Every structure is written in C-alpha cells, then in structure tokens.
C-alpha cells in the first residue's frame, strides 16, 4: 500500500468538503484544503522494514521500520505543537478562554512542543545521516479556522488528540525496539489524558471524556488506526508534501 499526502488548494465542492469533514471529525474546520490523494497500491513488495526516511523521487518519504514510525510520530507532534503554539499566541487567548481552559491549553502547548523537540533530538541522534534523513520542519495551514473561537479551537484540539491516540495505538505494533515502544507508550497515555481533558471542557457533565464515540461499547477498547488512515486526517492541515509509501 502506498500512502501519499498531497495537499492542493482547491475550491472545495460540497461533496469533497463533506467527506473531508467526516474523515477528520473536524466539524468546525473549513480549511480551503482538501486531501487530493491517498493512493493505495496493492503492491506490497516494497513494504520493507529498512527503508530509511529521506527524499525519494523528489519528495520526503517517512520510511519504514522504527525510524519510519518515529518520523511519522515526529510529523504528528509537529502538527500538534504548531496548533497549540497558535492557540496560546492568539490575540484574544486571555478573553476567549477561562482560567481552567487556559491552564489546560497552556499545558498542552508545553507538552506537545516538548514531544516535538524530543523526536527531533532523538531522530537526529539515532538516524545514520540526519542531514538527509530527518524530516524537515513542516508547514501548516488551518484554513479559515478562527483561533479566537473557543468552540473551533476546542473541537480541533479534540480531533487532534483523539487522532494522536489512535495513531500511537495503531503504530505500536510496527515498532521493533522495546525501548522505542516504551517511549511511544509514555507519550500516548499523555495524549489520552489530553483528549479526555479537552472532551471534558467541551461537555463537562457527561461521559464524553471516554465517550461511546471513541471507546467501543462492547470491548472497552480505544481507537487504533494505521498511518494510512491517520495521515489523510492530519494531512488536512499539513501543507508540506511528504509520502508514507513504506508504512501500512
């Protein structure tokens, strides 16, 4: 399977917009970006565990194996860190959110920036040739999202945190090194704590913190998704083109 995140500026038709919104769960985001392609290819011959991240055919590919998974996580953490950086620096942050909400969002900003910089440092130290194999800093576009809108910010935060949980849950089995698996485990539970907190801010008097929309009502299991299911969601905000042709 090949996954390619291609972002194109288009005039979204109602249909494409609807499918994007459904896919992402970002009901309040109407970015002028749609996912143009996530090409699937049944040729799995190139699904090796030893493809290093780096430029392939002119586009950065996340690679495979542990470095591929870590680079994938680095891309997602770049998105979360960028989003919360914009949230806490928005012009009306202090008036848009109450004390408790500002505390939560500021903590999340700290945590996600730490995660991002951690992955950058860890990958830089571990990759054989980080100058060509380290994922560059990505660029982001949130379309028409209003960072001074409480509802829009919290809805996007909820989608990002739930997506993060599903991404790490799905990526765990792709990790070969017990040390890297443990590191991913240390981070995913914090993402889940975040998701719970954001969901409580949105709907406090409820069971939404671990709602039936996200926790299976017969097994009690949270969501787990492959990178090919996650990247189209995250890709809605990422304007730097990259591929994930060697991840499932």
């Amino acid at each position, binding site marked *: 399977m090949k996954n390619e995140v291609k972002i194109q500026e288009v005039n979204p038709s109602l249909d494409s917009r609807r499918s994007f919104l459904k896919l992402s769960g970002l009901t309040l985001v109407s970015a002028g970006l749609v996912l143009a392609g996530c090409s699937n290819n049944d040729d799995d011959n190139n699904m090796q565990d030893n493809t290093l991240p780096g430029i392939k055919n002119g586009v950065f590919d996340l690679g495979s194996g542990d470095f591929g998974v870590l680079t994938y996580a680095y891309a997602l953490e770049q998105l979360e860190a960028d989003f919360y950086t914009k949230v806490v620096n928005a012009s009306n942050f202090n008036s848009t959110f109450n004390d408790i909400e500002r*505390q*939560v969002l500021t*903590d999340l900003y*700290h*945590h996600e*920036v*730490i*995660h991002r*910089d*951690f992955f950058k*440092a*860890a990958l830089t*130290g571990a990759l054989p040739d980080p100058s060509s194999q380290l994922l560059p800093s990505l660029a982001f576009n949130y379309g028409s999202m209003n960072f001074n809108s409480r509802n829009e910010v919290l809805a996007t935060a909820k989608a990002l945190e739930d997506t993060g*949980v599903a991404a*790490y*849950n*799905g990526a*765990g*089995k792709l*990790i*070969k090194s*017990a*040390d890297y*698996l*443990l*590191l991913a*485990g*240390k*981070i*995913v*539970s*914090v*993402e*889940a*704590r*975040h*998701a*719970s*907190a954001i969901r*409580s801010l949105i709907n*406090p*008097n*409820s*069971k939404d*913190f*671990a709602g039936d929309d996200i*926790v*299976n*009502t*017969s*097994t*009690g*299991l*949270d*969501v*787990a998704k492959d990178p090919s299911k996650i990247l189209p969601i995250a890709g809605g905000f990422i304007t730097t083109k990259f591929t994930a042709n060697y991840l499932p």
Partner: protein
Amino acid sequence: MNILKFIETFTDDSLMARTGSRRDSFNQFGNMGRNLALASIPFGLSAMANKALAKDITVTPATPIGALQFALTLEYLENEFYAMALDSGVIPASENGGRDLKVFQQIADHEADHVKFLIAGLGGTMSPNFVAKPTFDFTVGGAFDPFHDYPTFLALAQAFEDTGVRAYKGQAANLISTPDLLTAALQIHSVEARHASEVRRLRGLKGWISNAERGAGMPAATQAVYDGEGVTMQAGYNTASLFGAAAGSEAYDEPLNTQQVVDIANLFIV
C-alpha cells in the same frame, strides 16, 4: 466539598498545617498525629492487618500470556471496585450536577468490558491460561471505607487508574512479539489514561502527573503509585529544558514493572 474534607481527613500535611505552622503542629502533636495520619492510609498498611492470611497474587511471567493474566487481575480489581461503589450508593447523584455518577458509570462499563475482553483473549474461563478473580478487600482490613466515604472512594479511584496506566505501559515489551495483543493492550491503556485524567479532574487536579506528585489530598503512602513519574530525561533528551521539570515530566507517563504493580494490588487482595 470533597477535596477539602478529604484533605482534612487524610493528608498528614494538612492535619498538621490546620492548626498552624508545621513546626507548631509538630510541637503540639509530637509524632502522634503524624503516625496516626500515616497509619490511616491504604497503601501504607501492607505490613498490617490481614496480610498474614492474604492470598497474594504473584508476579506473572514476562510473556504475552503472562501480560494478559496480569492485566486481567488488574481489571478484576477495578471492575469490582466500581461495581461495589455503584451498588453502595457512595457516589452522590447530586455531585457536580450528576457528573460524577455519569463518569463512574461509564468507567465501570469499560472495566467490565475489559474483564470480558481479556477472559476471551485468554481463551475463556475453561482455558488453562485463565486466572480466577482474587478476593478483594478495598477496606484494607477495615481501615478504609471507600463505599461509605466518597473522598476515600475518589482517592482510591485515582490511585487505581494512574496505576493502571503505568501497569499496562510496563507490559508493552512483553507483548512486542504478538502484534494483535499489543494493539489491544494499547487500546485498553489509553482508555485507562482517559479515565485517570477525568478522575483527577473530579478531584480538582490536573489530568496529568506533575513530577512525582500524588496530588493534593492523596494519602501520603499512595506515593508508591507516583514514585518515578518525575523523569525528565527521555532517550537522552532533557524534557525540562524548555518549560521546566513539571511540564517535562507531565509530558511523559512512566511505567511500573510487574513486581511494583503486584505489590500495590496485593494490598487489596485477601
């Protein structure tokens, strides 16, 4: 009301601070108040009470089956704890406009699901890999009253959920050879983390663990659940470098190994 009441009831620091400075309190009570406060703490009672009769659980093997058996025992504990709490009526329907009851009904549903899921994963109750539910005593020999005293219930719920998060994390390496089981364990792990975050908020805390702090109102000896959470070096990266140690430690949850979790769980097994 619950936090303040709980602090007054259980926290040794508050017990002493209530009547003035810490030093004054020491002078007033000597060591007696401190010892009484410490003695009335669940996790500190391991050497007391009925432990001579305890049918302690033992460390499970570092294998995929062992990890599932270990997880099932923890889920038995959580499941019975919440089921008993809901039956007892200790959770006030009026608390936070009904929020608390909704929260614990949802958590109880999940823990019951996890028990069923893990039993099925072990091959059912007739499987040689099946492990039976231990006998639990959430009063720890009568020292505690979580099913009549709501703050005590809340404190134990926080301790169990935060323990659960660390326990599953500690089993991940034992499941690395069985991808489907690993994924399922991760899917339970993140649900426990969602629970922990919410229970902590009900108690007036942040949803995440700062440094190795058990948090306001938590009995001092629940510290076993939080020891080692203050790590700020991750794979050679100093997570405290940008925003300080509290934020750096909050951003990562740390594992507990099998023995550490068994030691905590055995306090509640008779």
